[in-house]
């Protein structure tokens, strides 16, 4: 699944030890995953143009090779509805270390999942599925399997989650598209097998899963040293 562009992104990112978010999303988009419409801007007029094109409300995030954990520096702002707020956030981001731009994302909705991969020394690429968001390491509601994954594996992974009922339509909510989760995970496990010489770990967190589809809202690829 690794085409030339994916390889070249991975190669150029080695100097940072990880892949910047817009590049990571580009990789997943190239590999056939659904990602939100997004653009990167450094200046106010670029940002306004991009946000209007994507359509408000938008989510914005700091792009900096020095900032891995964006939430820690308030580097993620959701629900921006107008130009004024957009420019104000951009001004603040410009002062953060290593500022390389502002990522402007279409807002996605649904159940927040985390899909991840760890390149285990003993077992090679291990896949993780769980309930995502910032609380992921508090609840630790995750399941693990060795890649590559089959449909049966993914089904087992989902059913292992304590919060599984949230996927099937808890208390009148619309059930999420289970087959979209399956397809996303299986495709992801194939990509990780192909990328096993490059990556150390990957977080897709969150992946927004709705009744229609699964969208990778944030992607972090840590590379092998």
């Amino acid at each position, binding site marked *: 699944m690794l085409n030339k562009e994916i390889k070249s992104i991975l190669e150029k990112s080695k100097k940072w030890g990880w892949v910047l978010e817009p590049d990571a999303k580009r990789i997943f988009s190239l590999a056939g995953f659904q990602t939100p419409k997004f653009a990167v801007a450094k200046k106010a007029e670029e940002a306004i143009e991009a946000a209007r094109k994507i359509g408000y409300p938008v989510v914005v995030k700091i792009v900096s090779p020095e900032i891995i954990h964006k939430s820690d520096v308030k580097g993620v702002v959701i629900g921006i509805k107008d130009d004024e707020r957009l420019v104000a956030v951009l001004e603040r981001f410009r002062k953060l270390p290593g500022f390389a731009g502002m990522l402007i994302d279409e807002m996605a909705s649904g159940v927040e999942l985390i899909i991840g991969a760890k390149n285990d020394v003993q*077992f090679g690429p291990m896949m993780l599925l769980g309930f995502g968001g910032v609380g992921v390491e508090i609840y630790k509601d995750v399941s*693990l399997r060795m890649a590559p994954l089959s449909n049966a594996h993914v089904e087992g992974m989902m059913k292992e989650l304590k919060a599984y009922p949230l996927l099937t339509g808890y208390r009148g909510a619309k059930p999420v598209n289970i087959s979209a989760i399956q397809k996303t995970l299986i495709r992801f496990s194939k990509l990780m097998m192909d990328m096993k010489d490059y990556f*150390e770990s990957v977080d897709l967190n969150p992946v927004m899963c709705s009744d229609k589809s699964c969208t990778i809202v944030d992607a972090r690829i840590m590379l092998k040293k």
Partner: protein
Amino acid sequence: MNLKPLLEPKTMAVIGVSATNERHPANVIFDKNHHRYPVQVFAVNPKGGQLHDETLYARISDLPQKIDLAVIAARAEFVPDVFTQCIKAGVKSAAVVSGGFTEGGRKDLQDKIVAMAREADFPFIGPNCLGIFSPLHVDTFFLPIERMIKPNYGSVAFISQSGGILVDQMIKFSQQGVGMSKAISIGNKAFVKEIDLLRYLMTDRTTKVIAFYVEGFAEGEGRDFVLAAEGAPKPVIIMKSGKSEAGHRAVSSHTASMAGDYASFKAAIAQHNILEAANEHELVSFCEVLSVYQHSIGGRIGIITASGGHGAMAVDACVAEKMSVPELSQEIQDDMKAAVSESVQTIASFGNPVDLTGSATDDDFVACAKVMGASDEIDCIVFLLLPYIPGITLDIGVRLSQVCRQYKKPFIAYAPHVEKYNMMIDGFELNGIPASSSIEGAVLMAKALTRK
């Protein structure tokens, strides 16, 4: 890799037997095999000479027979030279007992013998190990025979990265009446690794259960192992140590943090149908039950007891292990009630657990076992035996085993394991019903059978 000469040698050379020090490990190995095992054994010492009336051969090439297995207890720096001699003399395999390789900072020496072995297709086990206990063939452990507790000959093979754990586990297998087909200590596993032994034991007719004690796998080795084990036609069990993460490593992603080494290990082995034993107690229970029953079952457990408390404890344990103790249909309950003795009829309860009370006799247990055995509402029956109640006799084990054979449904027993009750316990175990020394143990046995 042909491991037969290694695991079932007909001829063996022990290198480094001393003419003067009878406590030398090589002497212990030589003596026990010389006196106790069918393998034809020769002693080698570069100085030659005599040990009692046995010849000490100066060179491996002097030996009068082709050698299947060389046991090498020489100092690490001499081992490459011994390898050269062995390979030249056409020795088929080796067990390197000596330490002082990678574990002692001499990775170079270990790499050297591995390269030699690879070049010459000369499989060896170790270094830094006890080697092979193969009951009908050979015993390379340097432990005096009078100090070892040897389990009965049986169908469990146990492979261990640690010699100490292996020998200890043999004691526990022995106490629990679990028979072994092989006990193999692989030490640094420089050449022969878990996967090689797994492949050999998969087709070994005397082995029905393959169990491992694993500290860790080398890079990528875990993946190959689980993929091979998934296709094994017999149950594979792993007991793992080193489960706690060493210190706080800086982890830069959520996934890396949550998919730690042990979490990944656990997930990977479960995914490939390998049973994980959390501790020694589980290991022994799993080995015992799987050496008797290899077919997997559903998780509906029937319990027949003579004490309500025992029944309640067993139910809790079943539920904790994600098995069910379903209430039996009225029809089954009526059949059981009709089958037991009159004195028990009015005081027993038949819902599941079936509590036959302290008035129960062998006949009552057998009668209920028949009804439950024939029923399709239950996948496995756990008997909670109280040997001290007056109506129970020493014959109960053998009588229940006959019922078990008739209905082809796994039976598992609990009875306290004290010397006084040994004959009753033997009645179960020697007739094909695993018997645990604890209620939880009996339930763990049932759990092992629910593996897919």
